[in-house]
């Protein structure tokens, strides 16, 4: 598997994604500069966390117009796998690769570990996980409150596009376990084609016991299983 990691000028989780793929998964990765016009044959594209172009306007609002994003959108349209993490999720929403929008958190920036429940295992980022599996990973964002109209939320639920939900330690999506005020505790979603997945938590920061959690590993292993299938 070859993973292309998009590097916007303000990306700051690009190296972490690289280490997750190369060091922990033992796969090939290539950094894709935002001004580039070529995905260099990558099977999977990761839009990493950070502040793409500063995000003073709205997180991800400018990034969607970058040269590399034209290629990423074409890749997604062909059914190629795209994973958006944190700012990458925001960019994917801005680029309409994913439904909904990510608004400023209801209570300001939050950096802390959260627990999410895997709602769907029929996506390339969750196929190796089990339904209902609880994963603990860090979040660190100021604009992660997933929002959509009530109708669209119902449709997303009905179509199985809600992939991750914030839950408490017993697996219940309580208000207290929702770190940003996201509608229906939604932490991650996929598109209708199920080839684009976005989430606010950082699985790439949960890859080794030394740093406190290995729960992100199963998500990256899902990518490998999907690509090799």
């Amino acid at each position, binding site marked *: 598997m070859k993973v292309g990691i998009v590097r916007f*000028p303000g990306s*700051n989780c690009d190296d972490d994604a690289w*280490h997750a793929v190369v060091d922990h998964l033992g796969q090939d990765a290539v950094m894709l500069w935002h001004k580039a016009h070529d995905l260099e044959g990558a099977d999977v594209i990761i839009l990493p966390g950070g502040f793409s172009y500063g995000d003073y306007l709205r997180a991800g609002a400018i990034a969607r117009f970058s040269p590399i994003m034209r290629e990423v959108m074409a890749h997604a349209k062909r059914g190629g796998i795209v994973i958006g993490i944190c700012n990458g999720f925001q960019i994917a929403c801005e680029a309409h690769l994913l439904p909904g929008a990510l608004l400023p958190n209801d209570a*300001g*920036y939050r950096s*802390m570990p959260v627990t999410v429940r895997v709602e769907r295992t029929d996506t390339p980022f969750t196929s190796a996980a089990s339904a209902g599996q609880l994963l603990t990973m860090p979040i660190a964002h100021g604009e992660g409150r997933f929002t959509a109209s009530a109708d669209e939320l119902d449709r997303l639920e009905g179509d199985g596009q809600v992939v991750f939900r914030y839950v408490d330690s017993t697996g219940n999506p309580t208000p207290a376990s929702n770190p940003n005020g996201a509608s229906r505790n939604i932490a991650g979603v996929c598109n209708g084609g199920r080839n684009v997945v976005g989430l606010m938590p950082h699985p790439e920061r949960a890859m080794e016991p*030394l740093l406190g959690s290995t729960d992100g590993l199963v998500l990256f292993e899902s990518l490998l299983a999907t690509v090799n299938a």
Partner: protein
Amino acid sequence: MTATPRPGDPAITPALVAEHGLTDEEYRRMVAMLGRDPTFTELGVVSALWSEHCSYKHSLPLLRALPTKAPWVLQGPGENAGVIAVGDGLAVAFKIESHNHPSAVEPYQGAATGVGGILRDVFTMGARPVAMLNSLRFGSLDSARVRYLVAGIVKGIGDYGNCVGIPTVAGDVMFDPSYEGNPLVNAMCVGLLREEELTRAKAEGVGNPIMAVGARTGRDGIHGASFASEDLSHESDAKRPRVQVGDPFTEKLLLEATLELIASGAVVAIQDMGAAGLASSSAEMAARGDVGVVIDTTKVPVREPGMTPYEILLSESQERMLVVAHRGRDDTVREILAKWDLQAAVIGEVIAEPVYRVTEGDHVVAEFPGTKLVTDCPVYTPEARESAAVAALRGQDAHTVPEVAEESDPAWTLEHLLSSPTIAGKHWIYRQYDSTVRTNTVRGPGAGDAAVLRIRGSRRGIAAKTDCNSRYVYLDPRNGGQIAVAEAARNVACVGARPRAITNCLNFGNPKKPEVYWQFREAVAGMGEACAALDTPVTGGNVSFYNENPSGAVFPTPTVGMIGILDDVERSVGMAFAAADHSIVLIGEPTDELGASEYLARIHGLTAGAPPRCDLAKERATIEALLDAIGAGRVQSAHDCSEGGLAVALAECCIANRHAMHGARVDLSRWAGLPQRALLFGEAQARVIVSTTHPGDVVAAARRHGVSAFHIGTTAPAGEGLFIAGIAKPLAAPLARLADAYHESLARAMAPAATQEQGISS
């Protein structure tokens, strides 16, 4: 050549000189240095470079006496940041710096630009920043203004570091009414480099081009350095335009571009354009290399037309660097900066003639002989005298303070101390800081007595912590200065790291006041003694005087930023008890000292009594014992006793990890002869609480180093709470109550700030 006034320059009058903060004597010195009257531009440049902030004119003689050398010190004071060797060819660059005055008038931008400045100091050394820390001091949270400052400063620190993508991993926060109106914001950055990448800010090589790199120069922050060199007053709010505005996205670009520049080999030297901007960065780089320079201000990329040389030289616009490139390599510099969509312009060159010259096109607007602009700055040793009032406070016997009725239950006192904003958990603050980005954070905020970072590709790790109990320094600056260093070292040792070096940020009042200068002299001497005893030299730092408000000076606050090195990062330990049925060992011993304690401040509203004695030999032995025991894998947790004493430290070990709390049964009958409140809440130094599966080995390790250690209890399931027996009034407290006091108090105290927080978000 000689400098002549520009058309339109104001005449140099005594009033204008005074407005520039120069004394009559300093002005005469300047005229003598030039051999003529200065131009307006020269007056501005000297005013900035001879400001306290840039020149250290009231502190230099004392700072020179600090220990600065050790075999592992690669770069001591005088550069953008200090650097120590880690082993395996790796090195750590680190420095702490204040941004107090800007933060007092414009908390969000003041704090944000403080973070930006210290980041640049570290990456200009060729180091990639890997962690931020910050040391904050505020007045009482009862004040709406203080809550506004806390909210704005924390958000400013968070937004800047989060955007650049550097984890904020540790710090220290203290609240005391003395900081009302003059908060302290000290930001520390830690960077990692390979030894051969070490880059210095020393201009060299006649004919080499000098380049302005990064953001354009605007009219913001002019005379920020001078502003930072005077007392804060009611008029200070009017100086808000002197506070710069930060752009962390540009900083991120500049960081990446700078590290690429250094890797390219195209540059000789780099310096941040920080305080006093282009004027100080160019003059200091020239002075370090003992070379001449010429700068043409018309070549500097500016944000708006019509800027004068005076404004261009003194602007403190953020996210700019001054680069000396190798001759013929300026195109390489331009290409690298262009990749990151940033500017690079040749604005001058290194010259053989021993002169510091500024031109506007062909017109010389400022010219100083040799490096005198930097080296001829006056140095003062003001009168020093202890305040009789403070000496009287120190002389008070804390034991004569009558107990309040509620103290009949020591659990009440404990809970009250745990809810003190100074002691309480700082989750409300650090949840606003990304502490896990870059995936190196082994122990982040709240997890250990210091932060622990792994170094990729090495078994080694870095520990970092800031500390300063300024109440101790106020009541006894010599002893307090020692303790600031010793406590930081102890904290670093508690996670399993050997303390290696410090950076310091010396926050004091007006040095022209004899009692302030006495505090400064004594505190610096105390720090020096501790650094020598603990083998942790000073590698750089910053002095911030004039931290005063209309009601007087802040507590003298010589903040220490300590770096420790772990040989095996997998061996690091946290502060929270790890499991039930572990033995609890106290390394060190309680005393009957109660002076200067948080107990007196919180329960009785008193700042009085002598601070606990600091025995540096004992501190060193305690650290060695701890490192032995941790290195042997015999320690499951370690936490030092500081504010609130033994009882607070035990409670913190029980509740620090809120998701996995543990109870404790402790017997202190061995010390039943001590006054109970001194035993529980006194702040005797050189003490560490360890939990262990091998108590005999820990006690033996302590004995080997001549340190006392006692098996005082056992950890228990959370449901058993904290139980301290063997004393006249036993202490029994359910953990839920202690945890609520410890973890929720700061959020509760800050709750009224919520509406204001919205108002100042960027």
